[in-house]
């Protein structure tokens, strides 16, 4: 299919490419980019820098307003994805492009189905998928429905889609944003294998560490323009970050030691039977005011279910949950919110925002029926607008007007809207899930600062993240979830390494029951009077028997 490649030229290239969207947004400005065959090229930049747009130009989803796209060494006019696919370009989109009710195999072959005379040979599709998966080292279940498999498998299915079309250029738009560290590792291994087989890979990520790990060279974009391209080996995360934002920027957030107040969240014997997903059994833990408790775990081990129960979106099957003085066990979402629960959901597109409604409206969903917004049963539009203007200012949300629909915001700004809403009520308990997923380094830093500020203002924060680095950087204490139960508890995170936590996440090690419930009232093996053990143990010896309370 892609016989017309000129092997001497670059695999893909842009020459003076500019793209202006119909609404006047100029997303890409005069970009010149050359990517030789067999290279893994990272493209980094802040949210909205134009990375995805540039990739869409290579994939034919958008057409340049001016300039030229080269694929396989020759200038091409890509009228649509079909022509890009024919030239050997494959793309894994930032927002996965899969048909939920189709199986993995069906999604992989969609558009180029095996079979004769207009028929689809389902068996051949499954076999081809399995074979490709085998070859590329991407584990998938060809016969599982997409809406029933993990995000990681969906991601792998997307890559298989490209491979099935014999792509020679593979564009990966933030493929790791939703992957667990292990899945990321596997993905990288597969990508390297593909590169060694001659594939050209364009890789976009906001995680500079990953960029350093996987890429051969890095191109940096800022405000639609290409700032420069550097050899990965000769650069550092700091240098990249500086290139992206035009100034020095790190993710290290100054964080004073936690000042723990009274217990805000009290979870006892929490169990939940999930019809799909992970069930929870027998969770006991506390989160105190003024601390950030991280929840680590391989994705899909019950974190989402836990968060949804604590937010009132699911009902626990057994056990009790108290927030402050309120027993929230049987309450609905509104009851939870009244009890002082804030919640940043993991999927901002699914339930974090109403995309077609204005920013202002999105900022009041939990308080639209209370003063100062609503008085005497009337919701004041000027109050809503003023409220939005204040939060837009406070949280540096980049938008021309509060009446802009959220859909028109960049990912980072969308996330800021949600965080602004959840933090601005001054929650007693904040459940923060994957708050930096898909946001750029500037926004990431911003979120970190806000979270710490909320903690210092007295909020109990339960931080759920797939990013261990983030957890270790922010958490005062850390819990580890595995198979819907707690397997680890670290009351001091200083000096704790990702590797150590990883052992618990994978189930190699686990704390005993006594250790997990130490200092919790109302659980077995506890002296209610004894203060929870702090600072006494080295994180390296989690099983230290001296720390466990006597039975």
């Amino acid at each position: 299919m892609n016989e017309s490649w000129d092997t001497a030229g670059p695999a893909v290239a842009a020459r003076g490419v500019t793209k202006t969207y119909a609404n006047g947004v100029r997303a890409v400005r005069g970009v010149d980019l050359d990517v030789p065959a067999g290279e893994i090229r990272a493209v980094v930049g802040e949210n909205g820098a134009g990375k995805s747009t540039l990739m869409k130009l290579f994939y034919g989803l958008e057409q340049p307003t001016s300039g030229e796209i080269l694929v396989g060494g020759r200038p091409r006019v890509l009228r649509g994805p079909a022509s890009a696919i024919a030239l050997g370009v494959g793309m894994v989109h930032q927002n996965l492009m899969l048909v939920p009710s189709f199986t993995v195999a069906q999604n992989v072959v969609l558009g180029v189905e095996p079979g004769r005379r207009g028929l689809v040979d389902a068996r051949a599709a499954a076999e081809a998928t399995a074979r490709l998966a085998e070859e590329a080292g991407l584990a998938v279940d060809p016969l599982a429905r997409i809406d029933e498999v993990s995000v990681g498998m969906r991601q792998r299915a997307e890559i298989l889609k490209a491979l099935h079309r014999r792509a020679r250029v593979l564009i990966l738009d933030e493929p790791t944003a939703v992957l667990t560290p292990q899945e990321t590792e596997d993905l990288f291994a597969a990508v390297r294998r593909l590169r060694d087989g001659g594939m050209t890979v364009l890789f976009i990520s906001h995680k500079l560490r990953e960029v350093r790990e996987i890429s051969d060279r890095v191109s940096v974009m800022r405000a639609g323009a290409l700032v420069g391209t550097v050899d990965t080996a000769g650069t550092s995360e700091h240098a990249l970050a500086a290139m992206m934002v035009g100034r020095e920027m790190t993710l290290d957030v100054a964080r004073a030691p936690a000042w723990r107040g009274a217990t805000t969240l009290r979870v006892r014997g929490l169990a939940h039977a999930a019809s799909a997903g992970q069930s929870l059994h027998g969770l006991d833990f506390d989160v105190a005011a003024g601390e950030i408790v991280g929840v680590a775990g391989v994705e899909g081990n019950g974190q989402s279910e836990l968060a949804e129960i604590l937010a009132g979106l699911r009902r626990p099957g057994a056990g009790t949950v108290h927030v402050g003085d309120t027993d929230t066990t049987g309450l609905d979402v509104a009851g939870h919110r009244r009890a002082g629960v804030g919640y940043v959901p993991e999927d901002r597109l699914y339930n974090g925002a109403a995309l077609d409604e204005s920013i202002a409206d999105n900022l009041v969903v939990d308080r639209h029926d209370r003063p100062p917004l609503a008085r005497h049963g009337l919701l004041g539009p000027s109050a809503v607008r003023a409220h939005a203007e204040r939060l837009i200012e406070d949280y540096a949300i980049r938008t021309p007007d509060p009446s802009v629909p959220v859909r028109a915001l960049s990912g980072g700004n969308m996330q800021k809207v949600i965080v602004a809403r959840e933090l601005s009520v001054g929650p007693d308990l904040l459940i923060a899930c994957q708050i930096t997923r898909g946001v750029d380094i500037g926004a990431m830093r911003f979120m970190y600062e806000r979270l710490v500020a909320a903690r210092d203002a007295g909020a109990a924060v339960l931080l759920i993240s797939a990013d261990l680095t983030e957890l270790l950087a922010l958490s005062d204490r850390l819990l580890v979830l595995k198979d819907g139960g707690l397997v680890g508890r670290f009351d001091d995170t200083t000096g704790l390494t990702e590797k150590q936590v990883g052992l618990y996440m994978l189930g190699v090690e686990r704390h005993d029951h006594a250790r997990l419930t130490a200092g919790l009232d109302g659980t077995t093996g506890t002296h209610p009077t004894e203060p929870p053990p702090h600072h006494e143990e080295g994180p390296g010896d989690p099983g230290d028997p001296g720390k466990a309370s006597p039975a």
Partner: protein
Amino acid sequence: MSSVLDVVLSSAFLAAVLRVATPYLLAAIGGLVAERAGISNIALEGQMLSAACTGALVAGHSGSVAAGALGGVAVATLLGLLLAALRLELGADAIIAGIGLNLLASGGTAYAVYTLLDDKGGTSGLRSGTLPTVPLPGIDDIPVVGDVLSGQNVITWLAFLATPFVAWLFHRTRFGFHLRAVGEMPDAAASVGIAVRRVQYAGLALSGALAGLAGVFLSMGYVSFFVRDMTAGRGFIALAAVFLGGLRPWGVFLAALGFGAAEALAVQLGTLDVPPQLVSTIPYAMTLAALALYAWRRKRRGAKEVAPVSL
């Protein structure tokens, strides 16, 4: 009570069910195809009506029943394409466009008949004939089965074949595969190079064609002439069947057949000494009850599925 049972088990009743269900089946399956392609076809009624009218007019003037049927189906197909074009090219709301097309069909058919035949009522003055029935040699001697199956109109047979055909199309063919992808996730389909619009056009054409067959059955199978607005709301009942059937071919089949059976039953019970308006609510009341019951059971089952896991 036993007399009702006698009625329900009689071969005449079963044959009537097949007959009455035919237009519902075809139009509902047509509606299903459009719905799965991502464009609601509210214009089923208008497509049926235009096909019924065209069929009778063409057959009457050409003397060929086949030409009439083809003409009818062709016009309905065009209306399907027109709906797609309004939606895809002009960005019209599918529901308004559908209602607009229904209006257009109602006015247009009346005008056509009036201009061509100088008759405001219909084409009963024109001899257009009916499509052939299918005798089943051998089977028609079998007591009940023969009476039910033999001598049904050829379109009734097509109606019953339409469901397996569409099920096959959806799940076995490349076109059906693309159609479902386009309806469910147009972006995903576009991103793998599927010509989304082309697929939707084709889907709507097929939808129109099926509705057209339903219309042709009315004027060239059920009876042998066209009467102004003779679809009498059948397109909307078919639409209800599309959703009642949960957007699945066999679900829609059962729903449409159910409507046919309920209406046939209401006809059979019509001579009872009950106000006729109340008797005629039977099919709809049954549907409503079935809808509630089905939803309730699904909900309860959903709850039950969760429960045992906790044990």
